[in-house]
């Protein structure tokens, strides 16, 4: 203990340098963790988090009792996660291989620059672009088809719309990581395959894809850790937070955001938040454990 204190004193400059980030993390990230006890309390704004009376697991009973809302948003969160992750990974890999195979490199670079742009546009701005395409009166789609489709009040269209918007937003950017793996493949492998008479597809199938598998595995596993989190802007902004669409667009994050604005239902929301955080933690531990087994270098801890 004494030597530890001695060591710390010797490194006091490092302690001082670590302090600002330490404090920011403490006040912004750690204190709100304690706030999760709200899930077991009957929250009253005037009393605050600590003084509000405990109510055991009543909030969670409430959660299970109001199946419809809770089940819908949990289902949506999970389904969108699965679709976005599966389709996203697939498209990332396809795009990375396509750009890698393309011999006109200057052009490939320009195209890539453009493909990454959407990720830098906030959803608050994206929703206006989406509106220009699908609004009933002025939308490009309705005008082109001479139709009168009411996208903003028909829930069943939205899984498709949101998937397209999400892919538009993220695929160009997501492929960068895979391209860096492809750039690192030893060319001798391709040359050897060529001598053995392999054609282009065989080379992709037997060299390129196997080289990508470790990175794909790691990225998939790590993403499992954020299974309960969603791209809030996509579900809140792009849908214009329209209540009619909730059956297919409400996810946990957007529900919580709405609850904060409506200033209501804190017990239910706190229980939902608690559920989200705990499942997130378990998934993260699971994911990291798996990565540790498969590719220890890529494990987070």
């Amino acid at each position, binding site marked *: 203990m004494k030597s530890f204190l001695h*060591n*710390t004193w010797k*490194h006091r*400059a*490092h302690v001082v*340098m670590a302090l600002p*980030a330490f404090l*920011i*993390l403490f006040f*912004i990230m*750690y*204190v*709100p*963790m304690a*706030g*999760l006890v*709200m899930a077991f309390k009957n929250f009253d704004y005037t009393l*605050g*988090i600590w003084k509000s009376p405990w109510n055991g697991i009543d909030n969670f009973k409430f959660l299970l009792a109001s199946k419809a809302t809770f089940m819908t948003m949990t289902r949506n969160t999970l389904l969108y996660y699965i679709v976005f992750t599966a389709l996203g990974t697939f498209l990332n890999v396809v795009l990375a291989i396509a*750009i890698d*195979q393309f011999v*006109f490199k200057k052009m*490939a670079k320009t*195209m*890539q620059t453009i*493909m*990454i*742009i*959407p990720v*830098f*546009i*906030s959803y*608050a*701005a994206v929703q*206006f*672009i989406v509106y*220009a395409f699908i609004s009933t009166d*002025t939308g490009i789609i*309705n005008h082109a088809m001479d139709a009168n489709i009411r996208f903003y009040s028909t829930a069943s269209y939205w899984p498709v719309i949101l998937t397209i918007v999400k892919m538009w937003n993220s695929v160009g950017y997501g492929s*960068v*990581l895979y*391209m*860096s793996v492809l*750039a*690192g493949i030893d*060319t001798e492998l*391709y040359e050897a395959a060529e001598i053995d008479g392999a054609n282009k597809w065989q080379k992709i199938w037997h060299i390129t894809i196997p080289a990508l598998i470790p990175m794909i595995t790691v990225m998939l596993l790590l993403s499992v850790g954020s299974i309960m989190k969603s791209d809030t802007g996509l579900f809140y*902004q792009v849908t214009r937070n329209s209540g009619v669409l909730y059956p297919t667009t409400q996810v946990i994050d957007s529900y*919580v955001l709405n609850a*904060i604005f409506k200033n209501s239902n804190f017990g239910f*929301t*706190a229980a939902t*938040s608690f559920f989200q*955080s705990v499942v997130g933690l378990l998934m*993260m*531990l699971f994911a990291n454990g798996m990565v540790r087994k498969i590719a220890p*270098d890529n*494990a*987070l*801890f």
Partner: protein
Amino acid sequence: MSKKKGNAADLAPSRKEKKGIGQYVLGFFLLLYTLFCFLPVLLVFIAAFTDEGAILNNGFSYFPEKWSLAGVQSVLKYGHQLLTSYAITIFVTVFGTFLGLMVMSMFAYSISRKGFRLSKFLSIYLLIPMLFNGGQLSGYIIFTSYYHLKDSLWLLILPLCVSTMNVIILRTYIANSIPNELMEAAKIDGAGEYRTFFQITLPLLKPSMAAVGFMMATAYWNDWQNALLYITSDSKKPLQLLLVSIQKSIEFLLNNTNVPAAARAAMGGNIPQYSSTMATVLIVIGPIMVVYPFFQKYFIKGLTVGSVKG
């Protein structure tokens, strides 16, 4: 067939290959996807310069019947508010990015020092927020009722300031790309800890800081959620919140056909129109489009470095 073995961040290593028909088919599909990414952005430009009447009659179009500067001009009617919002966004972005880079690189430097026994604890302390967090609701209540920071710019700056992933990227760079001997040599020459960090480490950390800094700046520029949650007064409204409130007022007008004429009149020139809305969107997303190509190589490197933990 031969290829120079490019470095890992070089995304388009050249390879001598036949430019057969297959290449043109591939190029065609890549071009299609590029257009898919680009056309929605282009629409913002076009709609911003389209005549309002043309949009009302024919809808949004890539080939508008009539062009007009009215949309862009009417944005100037928001004039004062737009300037204020721009100033707020720029301030938050610059100050937040600078502050974040500073505190994160100091933290990363500290925990990468050998023989510093507290660094193990600090690393775990850094990691936990990535695994577990209090969620939006408890954050909201803590920040507003306990810290009393409602309507404070600090809530736009601090929540995005320190992120575990960014510290890991910086730490990896310090561990792998900055020779420890340099720091030791500086110490032997009599430089103190702080001087060693600021004069030796920090300048060498620039490439990594450019990558992290660009990602942070984008996150600050695009953040609407914290603004929507915490900012109430017009004088502190950042650009993204301005966009959100434009949308809210459009919604209000659409959903309330019986808004009294007096109220409509009171909103005066601020009833948002399609072309002026798009002009605002253009003004909001414009700067990032302009700046991004210059930072592309840095942030691609940062992305790649971040994926390989040291």
